C-alpha cells in the first residue's frame, strides 16, 4: 500500500517524509552539538589560574636531546603582514625580525638568542666584538669577522662596504626605510635623507673588514641600534636592482641575500645581472602562502658562536584559521605557531598535565593598547581620552586574550621591565579590579566640550558613528563588543570595522581613523627610546607606514603633507622630551623616560593601554628543544630542534 501510494507520488507522504527528514536533521544537529560540548562539562569551566609573575617564566622547553636535521614547520595566522614585503631596509614586523636575526641576516652586533635578561645582552655577530666608543663617544669602529659569506647566488665574502651600502640604502628617502630616525645621529645622514647627497659622510670603510661611524652627539645605545636588521649587510650588486623608485620599494624582499645560516629555498647559481635575478621559490610573496628556508651552503658555523642551527629546513605556512593552527600543533603537523592562542586553547593546555609543558609563556616587552587619534573628534578632547581610560574594562579585555597567562593588565605606556622594574605600581586610571568605572569616566566626560550639559555622557553628534578599526582575528572579534559596550556607557557610539589586516589602514594618517584596538608595540631593543621615538615623535609621522597612530606632535604643515584632517592645530607634542631623554645616560635616562611616560598618560593621553602581553607559544610533540629569543620576542629559531 505504501509502495503504491509512493508510486503515485502521494504529496502528503512526501511532505511528511520531508518534515521527518528535516526534524531528524535538526535533532542530529542538536545531538552533535551537545556531544561536542560534553567534554567541556566534564572538565568544568570555573577553574582558575594563578596570576604568575613574569619571573616564573623560564622561556625554555626540552623534550629529549637535540640533534641536527629535520623540518620545522610553523603555522602563521592570517597573513605574513609584512610592512615592506620582507625587504630588511623597511621591514618592521617583529615576526620578520625573528627570521632575520635568527636565520638569515647577521648585523654587526646581535644577541645570544636566549630568554630573559641574557637575551638582551649585546654580542658581536658580524663584528668580532661590541666596540667601545672613542672620541668622547662620537666614534664607533667595528671589525668584521673573516669567513662570513653570502648565500647563493652572490657567494662572496661579506665586506664592510656591504654594511655601508645597507646604511646608505636606509638613509635614502626612496628606499622605504621605516626606522632611519635611529641613525640621524650619524654625520651626513640628513644630507642623504633630504636627497642632497647619496652617501652618508659619517660612515667610512678603511678596509673591507673595518667600518667606522662618526656621530654628531654621544649616543648611549648606538651599539644596540646597529643590531637592527636594516643595518645588516646587503650586497650592492643585488640591492641596486631594487633601489631608487617607489615601485621598487620592498621588492628586494623576494630576493633577500642571506648572510646567516639559512636562505630562501631556490637561491642558487651565480649572480650575473639584475635581469637574470628571479624571485626565489622559497618566498611566495607578502600575501603568499609560505616561506621556506634551507641551509646556506656558504655558512661557516665556526664564525658564529651563538646560533646552533639544528634544523635543516624551516617552513612558515600561512593558515587563516587559528583554531586549525593549534589543532595541527597539537597533532604534530606543525611544530610551532605565529598566532595568539585562543582562550579555549590556553584553558585546554593550562588544565591538562600532559599538554601544559608544551605551552610556554614568555615575557613580551610589549604593550597592547587602544589608540586614539588626537586630531579626530571626539578624541581631540583630552577629557574624552581620559574618560576612555576610566571606562574601558581592562579585566574583560585581558580575559578576551585568555586571562592572566597571556598577559598582565597594562597601566601605562612602557612595560616596567624596560625601566628595570620602575613604575610597576603606577596606575593613573585605576578602577576597582581594573574593570572600569562609570563614575570616574563620567566625571571626566563632564569636563569635555562634547558634553555641554555636563551629563557625564558625550552628547555631541561627533560621538555618533565613531569608526573603530579592528581586525578579523578572533581576539579582536571578542574585544570589539566589549569596547563598544564600554564606550557607549559614556555616550560614544562606535562603528566597528573589522578588516583583514588593520595595520595598513591605521598606518595611513590620511585615513583619519579615530580609534583602533589593533595596536600593539614591542621594543626594538631593550631601551624605552624604542617606544617613545617611534610612537610619539611628531617629526617621524609619515604618509604610509606611520606608527604614531595617535599623531602626537603633528603640525598643520605636516598634516597637509600626510593628508590628516580634523583638529590639527595645537596638538600636544613630546618631541623635546624625547630628545632630552635620548641624550641622558644611566639611571638618569631611565628616570627621564619614566617621567615622559607619566606625562603621556596624564597630559597627552593618546592611548588606553590594556595589556602587557606575555608571548605564549605552543609547540608540537616533535619538538625536542625550544627557547625564547628575548630580542625578537619570539622563538629562537636558531636553537630549536625536532625529532628525526
Amino acid at each position, binding site marked *: 500500500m505504501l509502495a503504491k501510494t509512493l508510486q*503515485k*507520488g502521494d*504529496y*502528503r507522504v512526501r*511532505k*511528511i517524509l*520531508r*518534515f521527518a527528514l*528535516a526534524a531528524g*536533521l*535538526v535533532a542530529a*544537529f*542538536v545531538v552533535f*552539538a*551537545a556531544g*561536542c*560540548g560534553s567534554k*567541556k562539562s566534564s572538565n568544568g*569551566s*570555573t*577553574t582558575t*589560574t594563578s596570576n604568575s609573575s613574569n619571573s616564573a617564566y623560564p622561556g625554555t622547553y626540552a623534550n629529549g636531546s637535540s640533534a641536527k636535521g629535520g623540518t620545522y614547520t610553523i603555522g602563521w595566522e592570517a597573513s605574513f603582514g609584512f610592512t615592506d614585503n620582507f625587504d630588511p631596509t623597511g621591514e618592521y614586523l617583529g615576526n620578520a625580525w625573528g627570521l632575520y636575526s635568527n636565520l638569515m641576516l647577521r648585523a654587526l652586533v646581535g644577541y645570544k638568542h636566549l630568554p630573559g635578561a641574557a637575551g638582551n645582552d649585546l654580542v658581536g655577530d658580524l663584528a668580532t666584538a661590541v666596540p667601545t666608543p672613542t672620541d668622547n663617544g662620537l666614534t664607533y669602529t667595528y671589525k668584521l669577522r673573516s669567513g662570513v659569506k653570502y648565500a647563493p647566488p652572490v657567494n662572496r665574502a661579506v665586506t664592510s662596504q656591504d654594511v655601508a651600502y645597507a646604511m646608505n640604502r636606509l638613509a635614502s628617502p626612496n628606499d622605504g626605510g621605516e626606522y632611519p630616525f635611529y641613525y640621524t645621529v650619524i654625520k651626513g645622514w640628513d644630507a642623504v635623507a633630504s636627497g642632497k647627497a647619496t652617501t652618508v659622510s659619517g660612515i667610512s670603510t678603511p678596509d673591507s673588514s673595518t667600518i667606522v661611524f662618526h656621530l654628531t652627539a654621544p649616543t648611549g645605545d648606538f651599539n644596540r641600534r646597529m643590531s637592527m636588521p636594516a643595518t645588516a649587510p646587503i650586497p650592492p650588486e643585488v640591492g641596486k636592482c631594487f633601489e631608487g623608485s617607489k615601485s621598487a620599494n620592498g621588492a628586494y624582499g623576494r630576493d633577500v641575500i642571506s648572510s646567516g645560516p639559512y636562505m630562501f629555498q631556490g637561491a642558487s647559481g651565480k649572480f650575473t645581472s639584475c635581469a637574470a635575478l628571479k624571485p626565489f621559490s622559497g618566498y611566495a610573496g607578502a600575501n603568499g602562502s609560505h616561506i621556506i628556508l634551507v641551509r646556506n651552503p656558504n655558512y661557516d658555523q665556526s664564525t658564529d658562536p651563538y646560533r646552533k642551527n639544528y634544523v635543516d629546513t624551516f617552513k612558515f605556512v600561512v593558515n587563516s*584559521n*587559528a*583554531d586549525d593552527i593549534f*589543532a595541527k600543533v597539537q597533532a604534530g603537523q606543525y611544530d610551532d605557531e605565529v598566532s595568539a592562542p*585562543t*582562550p*579555549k*586553547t*590556553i*584553558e585546554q593546555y*593550562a588544565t591538562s598535565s600532559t599538554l601544559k609543558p608544551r605551552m610556554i609563556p614568555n615575557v613580551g616587552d610589549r604593550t597592547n593598547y587602544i589608540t586614539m587619534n588626537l586630531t579626530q573628534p571626539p578624541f581631540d578632547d583630552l577629557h574624552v581620552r581620559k574618560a576612555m581610560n576610566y571606562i574601558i*574594562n581592562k579585566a*574583560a579585555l585581558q*580575559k*578576551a*586574550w*585568555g*586571562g*592572566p597567562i597571556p598577559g598582565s593588565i597594562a597601566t601605562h605606556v612602557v612595560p616596567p621591565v624596560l625601566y628595570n622594574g620602575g613604575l610597576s605600581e603606577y596606575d593613573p586610571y585605576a578602577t576597582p579590579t581594573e*574593570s572600569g568605572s562609570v563614575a570616574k569616566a563620567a566625571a571626566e566626560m563632564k569636563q569635555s566640550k562634547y558634553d555641554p550639559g555636563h551629563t557625564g555622557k558625550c552628547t555631541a553628534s561627533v560621538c555618533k558613528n565613531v569608526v573603530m578599526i579592528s581586525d*578579523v582575528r*578572533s581576539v579582536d*572579534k*571578542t*574585544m*570589539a*563588543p*566589549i569596547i*563598544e*559596550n564600554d564606550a*557607549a556607557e559614556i555616550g560614544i557610539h562606535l562603528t*566597528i*570595522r*573589522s*578588516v583583514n589586516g588593520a595595520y595598513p*589602514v591605521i598606518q595611513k594618517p590620511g*585615513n583619519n*581613523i579615530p580609534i583602533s584596538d589593533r595596536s600593539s608595540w614591542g621594543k626594538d631593543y631593550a631601551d624605552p627610546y624604542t617606544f617613545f621615538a617611534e610612537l610619539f615623535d611628531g617629526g617621524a609621522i609619515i604618509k604610509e607606514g606611520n606608527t604614531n597612530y595617535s599623531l602626537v606632535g603633528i603640525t598643520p604643515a605636516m598634516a597637509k603633507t600626510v593628508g590628516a584632517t580634523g583638529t590639527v592645530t595645537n596638538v600636544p607634542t613630546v618631541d623635546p622630551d624625547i630628545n632630552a631623554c635620548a641624550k641622558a645616560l644611566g639611571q638618569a635616562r631611565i628616570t627621564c623616560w619614566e617621567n615622559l611616560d607619566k606625562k603621556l598618560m596624564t597630559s597627552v593621553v593618546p592611548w588606553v593601554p590594556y595589556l602587557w602581553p606575555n608571548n605564549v607559544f605552543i609547540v608540537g610533540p616533535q619538538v625536542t628543544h625550544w627557547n625564547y629569543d628575548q630580542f625578537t620576542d619570539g622563538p629562537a629559531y636558531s636553537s630549536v630542534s625536532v625529532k628525526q
Partner: protein
Amino acid sequence: MTNPPDFEVTAGGAIALQSIAVARKTPRRLFWERLRQDKAALGSAVAIVLLVLIAIAGGPLSQWVTGHPQSQTYDSMTDAYGVPLGPNSHFWFGADSSGRDLFVLTMYGARTSLFVGVVASGFAMLIGLVVGLTAGFFGGIVDTVLSRLGDILLAVPQILIAVGIVAACGVSKSGCLHGLLQPGLTVVIVVITLFSWSYIARIVRGYTLSLREKEFVESARAAGASNFRILWQEILPNLMGPLIVYSTLLIPTNILFEAALSYLGLGVPVTEASWGSLLSQVSSSGLYNVAWWLMLFPGMFLIITTLAFNLLGDGLRDAFDVRSER
C-alpha cells in the same frame, strides 16, 4: 476542472441532459484550495510569520524580559580563561565569546538575517524582472547583451568576488565609491543583490519568450497596444505566480549567503547580531567543542528559517502549477 454533466435515462431509453450547474472556480480559489491541502506549506507559513514577528519585536522583547541589552557584556559569563559559559537560568542560550547574552543576540539576529534576505531578494527580483522582461520581450541584440551579462555573473566565483568587494569597502573610514557603499549591511545587501538577480532574469526571460507568442499578446498587439502596455498589462500579471515562488526560494538562499559572508568575517559588523557572525565565533575562536550553545541556537534558527521558506516555496509552486499531482 469541471464536474461531469448530470444525466438521467428516461423511460424510453433516451438520455436527457438536465440543466447543468457548473461550479466555476477562479484561479485564486483554485490556488487557495490546493495550498490549503499542503500542511507543510501552511506550517511553514506560520513559522515564517513567527520569525517575522521575532525579527520585528523579538530583540527588544528578549532584552526586556531578560534585562540584558544586546551590546552588554557580562564578565560573569566568561570563565577565568575568557571562555564563555553555557545556558543557565538567567542566560537561557548561554553567552558568546564577549560575554553577551546569546538569547538576545539570536533574537536580534533574526532581524538582520530576515532583513538582508528580504531586501536583497527584493532588489534582485526587481532587477531580474526588468532585465528578464526586456531581454525576453525585445529579443535580438538586447537579449544577447543582457543574457550574456547574466551568464557572466553566473560564471564568476561569487564568494571570492564578494570577499573582495566587502574587504575593499572596509579599509577606509568613508567606505568605497565615495562613501556610497559603507561596510556592513549596505555592502552585504549590494553584494548579494549583485549575484542574485541574474537567476531571476534568466527565469523571467524564459517565461516572457513564451508569453509574447501567446494569442492574447498577439491580440493586444493587433489592437494597437504599445510595448509598455503589453508588458505591463498582459505579460507581467502572468509572471506574478512564478515570481512569488522564486522569491520564497531566493530569500533563504540569500539568508545563507549573508550567513556565509558573516561567517567569513565579511558580513555585518561583529557588534551587530547575525546568525552567521555568531556561528563564526565558534570557528574562529575554536569554541566548537567547548561552547556548543554558540553553534546550536543560531544554527537551529538558521535551519528553521531556510527550511520554512523552502517548504513554503515548494507549496506555492505546486499550488500555482495545475499539472502537479496531489
